[in-house]
């Protein structure tokens, strides 16, 4: 090195004077080749990948363009399953043991065939001019509190179902069915025949039963005042 100019041999300019930073600057960066730590692969990458696949399958609403709720389909019953559930329900399995989806639906189906099907029919289609449909019904899939109240205390007078006028009497079931039974049967009708609504929680039923204890049969108007519209 030339002590005077700070030049290495072969340099034709005075580095120190022209460009102090160049002189002190380190070489361009490079990379070592240390291996990827094992825990990064097994504790971070792999569990994340497994979770990703599970969540994609679980919360994608069946990959349908017309489904906006990620929980869609959780409680949905397809026709094949419906047959099995209804058969189990009709066989009197309304004491199915636990809170799994299948058991809740089976109990619901049993109660439905015993209490509701006489009027609303086994397929939820109702009877024209007499009993309104539950299949694809805005009353069933909509406001959960309204559905619970009319099941508890009954409903009288003119109503609109999916825009069609109906005028009849639905007897209250609050005295013959307990909170769990009402929750199960409503969960069942909200999960089938084209309905897609979240399950009904027994606690919600008992809350409403307490709040409106001894209430007279509802009309569309009084229901609206109590818990709002659809």
């Amino acid at each position, binding site marked *: 090195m030339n002590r005077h100019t700070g030049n290495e041999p072969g340099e034709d300019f005075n580095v120190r004077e022209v460009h102090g930073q160049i002189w002190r600057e380190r*070489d*361009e*960066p*490079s990379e070592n080749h240390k291996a990827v730590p094992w825990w990064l692969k097994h504790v971070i990458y792999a569990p994340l990948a497994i979770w990703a696949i599970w969540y994609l399958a679980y919360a994608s609403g069946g990959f349908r363009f017309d489904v906006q709720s990620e929980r869609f389909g959780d409680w949905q019953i397809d026709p094949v399953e419906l047959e099995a559930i209804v058969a189990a329900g009709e066989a009197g399995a309304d004491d199915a043991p636990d809170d799994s989806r299948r058991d809740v639906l089976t109990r619901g189906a049993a109660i439905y065939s015993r209490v509701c099907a006489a009027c609303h029919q086994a397929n939820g289609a109702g009877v024209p001019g007499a009993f309104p449909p539950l299949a694809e019904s805005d009353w069933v899939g909509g406001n959960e509190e309204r559905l619970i109240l009319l099941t508890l205390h009954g409903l009288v007078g003119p109503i609109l179902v999916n825009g069609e006028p109906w005028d009849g009497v639905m007897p209250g079931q609050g005295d013959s069915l307990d909170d769990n039974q009402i929750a199960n049967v409503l969960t069942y009708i909200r999960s089938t025949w084209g309905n897609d609504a979240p399950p009904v929680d027994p606690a919600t039923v008992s809350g409403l039963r307490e709040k409106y204890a001894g209430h007279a049969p509802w009309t569309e108007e009084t229901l609206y005042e109590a818990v709002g519209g659809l």
Partner: protein
Amino acid sequence: MNPEHIARSRSERLAIDRAARWPVGVFIGSSIFWLLAGSLLALVASIKLHDPEFIADNPWFTFGRARSAHLNAMAYGWLSSAGIGIGLWLLSRLCRVPIEDHRSLTLSAVFWNFGNLVGVWGIMRGDSTSIEWLEYPAYAAPFLLASFAFVTLAAFNLVRRRAPGHIYISQWYVMAGFIWLPMLYFTAHGLLVLAPVQAPAQPPINWWYAHNALGLWFTPIGLAAAYYLIPKIIGKPIHSYYLSAIGFWSLAFFYAWNGMHHLIGGPFPAFMVTASVVASVMMFIPVITVAINHHMTMKGHFRYLIHSPTLRFVVFGAMSYTLVSIQGSTMAIRVVNEITHFTHYTVGHAHLGVYGFASMVFFGAIYYIMPRLLATEWPSRWLIRLHFWPCAIGIAIYFIGLSVGGWLQGLALNRTDAPFMEIMEATIPYLKSRSIAGILMTIGHLAFGVSFIWMILRRRAATSETGPTLFSLPPQSADST
């Protein structure tokens, strides 16, 4: 290393820095102008949120305009100008060839600034498109697009002529950013402003663009700068090439899907939003990978943070990157998003990203690059301190204030019995803390601006004897500016 090699690489760098002087210098210099303009607009918008009478009778400074003008001035004026300058310099250095077409690039810097000027003026006179992150009116976009096309072409030209050998990780990031941004901007501007698609399809395009502008433009340039400057200053290679590669490709793969998590709860197909939630959570992979790579490289060299302004800004930024990305992944999870969506919490998160990470890294990179372009030194270590501390403390106050305030706001908004006015009034103390943070950051930016202008005016000629401008003198001589 033999003396001949050292001599060659020195004269090579000298030629590179000389060629970069005008284009990179103009991009970086104008970015600082926009930083200051954006800071003032930010203060106007911030103060109005707790003190609505502030400049209430001038339509040019109503909240809707000041806030949008701030966002765009910062995103395109400050961060993008600085990002282009830093990216071009890094690429030129790493490809080991000087910029060939520096005149047209300097011209494109002028165009870029003209586009920003027209855009901010357009927003403030009331021509905003009202599409978040794309508020610039249609007549500003051609300048920006034409200018960026030049930049991308110049970048390709550098890569095409590059010296043979290993492609360093920063080159990957810079090139990717230079390709991604024009692609994103052109697509989104076309589909939302020039020939708008049907209304329901607009929000997904909007958030695809807005989130990718962060993750596929500011982030790659910021990471490229960190990957270059950390080993450069501490004089140690990056810990692992494999971690670098995994970090880059997983960012490229997962980030593009992230935008849809802004639409959680909205009327969009569930699988679209879910795919985005998944990709957002998968961002843990690039982020943790890069964090380990940086940390293992820095390990044993943290003492350099005492002396080197560049390294201190860059490491602050790199740490913010880890923090903000992990926070972002959690915010995309539906149960968390139900609380934070539509609150100030999101704003705190955004600023930790664009300010705590991108801006801080860019500050550090500018402290490193400018002395080399101008062959001089920063005039005063006090001004650099006055830049670092108010900004660091400012962003900390900003982030903590809005995170706490925003979270409480979100919890309250989810209760059906809480009156809206009371919720809003409860956020005021946190909004005031944001204004205080904004004033601190603006003080830092003013110090930066003074420092920069002073340096250009060459009030202090530097030689290697006076050495780099450091916070304090290191025990042994080290390259650290």
